[in-house]
């Protein structure tokens, strides 16, 4: 049961990254991809009907984490206090920038929100990557299962206490940013035509080069900082499938990009994200929050909710997820196809 919920939460977070990932990426690249007002609005229209739903995966994933592993929720959210609150502010800024820009027709107003959209999206991508980096590196949990980390100390992942930002977690942040840039560019390419489409494709191609470099660096750094990450793969070799999916995605992205098959390129970047995240999660299992002192690590057993709670949760959760998937399929189908500005909403 604990394992089931571990997978469920990991799945929801992966879905979150997959879905909100492309609108975060779109936020980062829109300043470069769109050269005029029409194009800016086209990009916003491409994510307008869906970004809020995408973000709900974060809330629902957080909620599920809270209910399946209350101790983990309490420990990690209070331990990452400052960065989490900063993430909240960024989410506020970004949400506003997407929605409010169109309400007043004024170039200054629009430029301001364009800037906010860029800053919010970019920093969020970096923070999410850094957060994952922290989990992989381990945090200074005490015997009661709590910790508190400063934002940074001396930027080394090996010092005690280490900060939330050190060179390793920042590297992870950059990796995440680059991933989402490619992913977002692929999405925009799918949803747009002509020059916007061509520019997005070019951005995706350039960022891909950086992505390859960062993936290699990141993988090496991970095994250097947290050698135990390899254990899971050793114990359960079938897990090697997951990094292979990531590699396949990485290759697929560039192949389809060059052939101008935008949809397939988007699927490839999705595969890359799924592969990377599931590999990490697979390696971390059965820990949910590795501690610097391994004895204090939170695991799926010592952080879990009651059996009864998890059992009733299974019922409503399954119903809820089926419903959510139905909404998403319907909404994405309804709004499928290239974005054209004539059918503007409100």
């Amino acid at each position: 049961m604990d394992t089931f919920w571990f997978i469920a939460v990991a799945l929801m977070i992966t879905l979150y990254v997959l879905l909100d990932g492309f609108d975060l990426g779109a936020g980062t690249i829109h300043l470069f991809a769109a050269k005029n007002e029409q194009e800016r609005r086209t990009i916003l229209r491409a994510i307008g009907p869906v970004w809020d739903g995408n973000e709900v995966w974060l809330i629902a994933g957080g909620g599920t984490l809270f209910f399946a592993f209350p101790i983990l929720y309490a420990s990690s959210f209070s331990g990452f206090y400052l960065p989490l609150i900063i993430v909240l502010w960024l989410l506020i800024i970004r949400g506003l920038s997407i929605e409010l820009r169109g309400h007043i027709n004024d170039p200054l107003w629009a430029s301001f929100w364009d800037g906010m959209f860029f800053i919010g999206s970019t920093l969020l991508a970096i923070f999410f990557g850094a957060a994952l980096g922290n989990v992989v590196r381990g945090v200074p949990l005490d015997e009661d299962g709590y910790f508190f980390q400063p934002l940074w100390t001396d930027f080394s992942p090996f010092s005690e206490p280490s900060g939330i930002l050190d060179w390793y977690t920042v590297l992870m942040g950059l990796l995440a940013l680059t991933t989402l840039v490619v992913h977002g560019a692929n999405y925009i390419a799918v949803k747009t035509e002509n020059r916007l489409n061509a520019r997005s494709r070019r951005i995706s191609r350039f960022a891909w080069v950086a992505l390859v470099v960062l993936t290699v660096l990141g993988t090496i750094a991970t095994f250097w900082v947290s050698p135990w990450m390899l254990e899971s793969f050793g114990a359960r070799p079938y897990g090697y499938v997951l990094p292979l999916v990531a590699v396949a995605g990485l290759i697929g992205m560039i192949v389809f990009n060059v052939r101008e098959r935008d949809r397939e390129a988007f699927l490839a970047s999705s595969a890359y994200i799924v592969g990377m995240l599931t590999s990490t999660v697979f390696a971390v299992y059965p820990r949910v929050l590795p501690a610097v002192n391994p004895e204090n690590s939170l695991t799926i057993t010592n952080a879990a909710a009651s059996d009864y709670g998890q059992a009733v949760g299974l019922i409503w959760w399954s119903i809820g997820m089926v419903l959510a998937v139905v909404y998403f399929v319907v909404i994405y189908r309804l709004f499928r196809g290239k974005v054209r500005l004539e059918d503007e909403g409100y």
Partner: protein
Amino acid sequence: MEDALTVSRLQFAFTVTYHYLFPMLTMGLALLIFVLKSVYMRGRNDLYNRAARFWGKIFAVTFVFGVVTGIPLEFQFGTNWAAFSAFTGDIIAQTLAMEGAFAFFLESAFVGLFLFGERRFGQRLHWFSSLMVFLGTWASGYFIITTNAWMQNPVGYRVLENGNIELNDYWAVLLNPWMFAQYAHNMGGAVVCGAFVMAGLGAFYVLSGRHVEYGRIFLKVGVIAGALSSLWMLFPTGHFSSDQVAEHQPVALAAMEGHFQTDREADLVFIGQPDMEKMEIDNPIVLPGGLSILLYGPAGGEVKGLEGFPEKNWPDNIPLLYYSYHVMVGLGTFFIGIMFLAAFMLWRGWLYTFRPMLWVLMLAIPFPFIANTAGWLTAELGRQPWLAYGLMRTSEGVSPLVSSGNVLFTLIGFAGVYLIMGLLYIVLMVREVGHGPEGEHETLENTENLTA
């Protein structure tokens, strides 16, 4: 301001109160928009469709503010109330997570459809999405109220040997007896809010001679909904709420009512200032014996005063609790008065031309927001000193390792961000109201011409 507990409480109180300013309007408007859209579907009077679309725009902006201010709350349980989350997570996280799974997904899907889909997918789907938006926002109200109801009146759990608690009856939590009155009351409060805003804006349009035919529609719908919901707040729901508090949280009731000494013929205080040193009400205007009669019927009955309870179980801010409660009830009475007067005038056909009434309706717009906020202050301050009533004290729930300096930093940050957001919201509303229900064409054409 020294300890992390105080600052965390301030931060939570500030962020949740701010958040709730938006949902109370969206939940109320969601119902009224659905009504407007349904009227349009029956009679195909285009005015009603335009009206629905116009309120849809107001809804959209408000909804965004509700979303972005809501997300921090969900996270703050973990960041600031880690001990509380660890202790009660097995129970309250169920309802919080269900809110995500059932309500937020529904809302986000159909709000997108409602706002972007009318032209593309036609009227029937648009009507349907307005229904789903209404159900979604009200479902989210249900889950959040159920969570809060559990904190007010914990049920469906059992205590383990190590002192922790765990869920043992899911349905007891979902059907918490406390929830029914609270939900009915709270949603009524949201309708009051939507109705006053709609009627008040209608009054503004009629008074200023712009968009008069829409102004009349807004007045009609707003006043009818306002009269019904205002009454609903007093009876049955307000009455049941106070009975419930009297039964389960008698010390909170005593504090709300400013009732210091135990008395068989307890007075009902209308006006007066609680004097905590002398333990009495200054400048009182009271209904002698009124409180006993309200709670126990004409025969009356003994109502325990604050002195009858150990001081460590008193709510820690009694004057504020007392004032909040009296502001809520006072405003509630005032709402019933003006809305019934307005409804009477509507019925006689005087409302659209009787300017003093229109002025009153227009100027009343802020008051439902105040009443709702005061209501929540009452509920939450009355719950003190408990975080989960009788189970966990507020002082035990705070995150153990987060320092007050860090919380103060984030509190100041929230204050800054929310101040700017408040200004933005006002600017956007003023513009939206300025454009009026016909304004959409203007803006659309403008944007269509904006090719580079």
